């Protein structure tokens, strides 16, 4: 046997006084960490297999378990951190590209945490959302240039299709395949109850979910999986996915093992075949090409549905967004570099793209300068972690936000970042029947509804504090933000003043 250079990252700590040997941990761990040792008459753990997903910890009836990060160490080195060394060992052993999932976990600046929100004092009254009406409803889509009248002096309806959101939060694209049937059902039912939308991702729409169509955004990505006329017309809007924050410039790959009967039918590909999404759309090499696809989709849906174009936040994002707005899109979705994924090359996830806060500020600024901000709505995603992040995003110029990771966390995800292994113990990022069953949508959808209801209360509370009673009045209201600990350049890009100014 070859030498194993890697020491387990986590250690399972079991309180032997509390453990009653019920073996729930053993039955619930798809990574097969726990087992019962007959000779020792106690539970034992293989730490090397633990991914720190906390399934065993959460289900242990006596709270006898916890997972700790190992304090086993390499000789300290500020340059060659343990992570670098371990990854080299891993690649030297396999010759493969490192894979990981969910969002970029590296210690880059988080601009949300460097912005502070204003509140009213003395000179303008704050509003109590429990006593006075407070509007968080938004409409996404192009807004007309001007009010037009017909010959009889009546207002002409020159409004293009709009998406009506009761709360400024949507569930971002996660395909059936990358996440389970039950996770999708939870999202769909929650979107319906909340008066917002979930997004099919690129994997097509399962036949059972057509009934949630009015609360569905259907996606068309480079692989064109599951795209047909009924699919395009099933949703409330169509999203063209050009890129994704977790892996800008990279396509997708759903391994054949996950393409079972149901997924094969939904994606319209043979069972067991790898579902490979090319990195680019092979018919889009310019804004003009994109415009053709935008209008093809508008034709196919009889101009009744807004078209969203989703891009990853990259260096030149403002100019690209301008092109997209001119290309006929109704909504631009921008995904920051912290955005999640079911699998991405680690190096791409951790090193490509830019923060969503900066991308949003520069896109909004650019579109306003060009006088085309009304032509598109802006939706941002890529690590919206709380209602405060949402308020800040809207003040920076967003119309609404997409949440993916937060939604999965509500469903039980513990960010162990092992989705690519397909053994999600929480029944989310897996297609294994026994694991999918662990996510009961009756429970899942309620948790999503709870989360967004709570966030909506908080958004109203924060707006009330600022003396603002409608989310429309907050949008692009950058005077409500102040930077803290930011450089001149950062403040300039964000278009905000420093605290104290």
């Amino acid at each position, binding site marked *: 046997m070859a030498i194993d250079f890697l020491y387990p990252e986590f250690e399972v700590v079991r309180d032997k006084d509390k453990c009653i040997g019920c073996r729930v941990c053993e039955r619930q761990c798809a990574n097969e960490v726990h087992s019962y040792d007959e000779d020792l008459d106690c539970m034992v753990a293989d730490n090397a297999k633990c991914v720190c997903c906390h399934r065993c910890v959460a289900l242990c009836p006596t709270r006898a378990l916890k997972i700790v990060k190992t304090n086993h160490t390499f000789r300290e080195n500020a340059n060659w951190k343990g992570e670098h060394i371990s990854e080299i060992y891993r690649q030297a052993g396999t010759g493969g590209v490192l894979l990981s999932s969910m969002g970029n976990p590296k210690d880059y600046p988080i601009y949300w945490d460097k912005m502070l929100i204003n509140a009213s004092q003395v000179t303008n009254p704050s509003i109590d959302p429990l006593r006075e009406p407070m509007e968080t409803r938004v409409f996404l889509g192009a807004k007309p240039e001007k009010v037009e009248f017909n010959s009889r002096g009546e207002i002409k309806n020159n409004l293009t299709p709009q998406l009506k959101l009761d709360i400024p939060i949507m569930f971002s694209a996660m395909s059936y395949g990358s996440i389970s049937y039950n996770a999708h059902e939870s999202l769909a039912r929650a979107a319906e109850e909340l008066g917002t939308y979930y997004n099919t991702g690129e994997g097509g729409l399962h036949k059972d979910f057509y009934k949630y169509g009015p609360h569905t955004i259907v996606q068309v990505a480079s692989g064109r999986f599951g795209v047909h006329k009924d699919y395009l017309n099933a949703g409330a809007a169509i999203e063209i996915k050009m890129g994704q924050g977790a892996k800008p410039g990279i396509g997708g790959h759903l391994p054949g093992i996950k393409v079972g009967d149901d997924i094969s039918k939904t994606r319209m590909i043979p069972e067991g075949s790898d579902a490979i999404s090319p990195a680019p759309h092979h018919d889009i090499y310019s804004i003009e090409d994109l415009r053709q696809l935008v209008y093809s989709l508008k034709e196919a849906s009889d101009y009744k549905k807004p078209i969203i174009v989703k891009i990853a936040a990259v260096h030149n994002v403002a100019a690209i967004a301008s092109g997209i707005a001119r290309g006929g899109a109704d909504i631009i979705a921008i995904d920051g570099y912290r955005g999640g994924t079911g699998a991405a090359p680690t190096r791409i996830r951790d090193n490509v793209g830019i923060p969503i806060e900066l991308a949003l500020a520069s896109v909004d600024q650019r579109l306003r300068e060009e006088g085309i901000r009304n032509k598109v709505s802006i939706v941002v995603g890529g690590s919206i972690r709380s209602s405060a992040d949402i308020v800040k995003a809207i003040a920076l110029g967003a119309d609404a936000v997409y949440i993916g990771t937060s939604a999965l966390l509500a469903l039980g995800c513990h960010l162990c970042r092992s989705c690519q292994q397909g053994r999600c113990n929480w029944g989310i990022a897996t297609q294994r029947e026994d694991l999918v069953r662990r996510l009961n949508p*009756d429970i899942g959808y309620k948790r999503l509804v709870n989360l967004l209801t709570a966030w909506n209360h908080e958004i109203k509370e924060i707006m009330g504090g600022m003396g603002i009673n409608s989310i429309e009045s907050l949008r692009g209201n950058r005077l409500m933000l102040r930077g803290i600990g930011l450089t001149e350049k950062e403040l300039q890009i964000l278009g905000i003043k420093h605290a104290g100014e």
Partner: protein
Amino acid sequence: MKRIYVDEKWCLGCHLCEYNCAFANSGKDDMSKALKNVKINPRIQIEEKDGISFAVSCRHCEEPLCVKGCITGALSVVDGVIEIDKDKCVGCYTCIMSCPYGAIMPSDDGVVQKCELCLKNSHGKPACVEGCPNRAIIFEEKE
């Protein structure tokens, strides 16, 4: 009347219900204290085969064969709940033989035991239902 129902679609076969049952009927206030080094003998039991599992406990039948068969009158129906009077039970096991669900079993104290919906123990409401992580066991009124 409210009864315990199980849905095999959501049962994970984790067996937590068995342990919650054993704890609720142990009379102790701490699970580790109650069940450490104990081979549990729960009133609810998981049946599993070929990837399908579900929990089985007393159905509280409207026409219970166990009550009919009981030779000492230890089993009786009180407000729809089939209860056992352990003082009257002589351990003849007729009820065990007659229960079509296998939901009555010998108890550790010599006589028989069955699910009494946790009405008589310190828990007060079905512990298996409350502890089920995936809502596979529910306690509700159904026609």
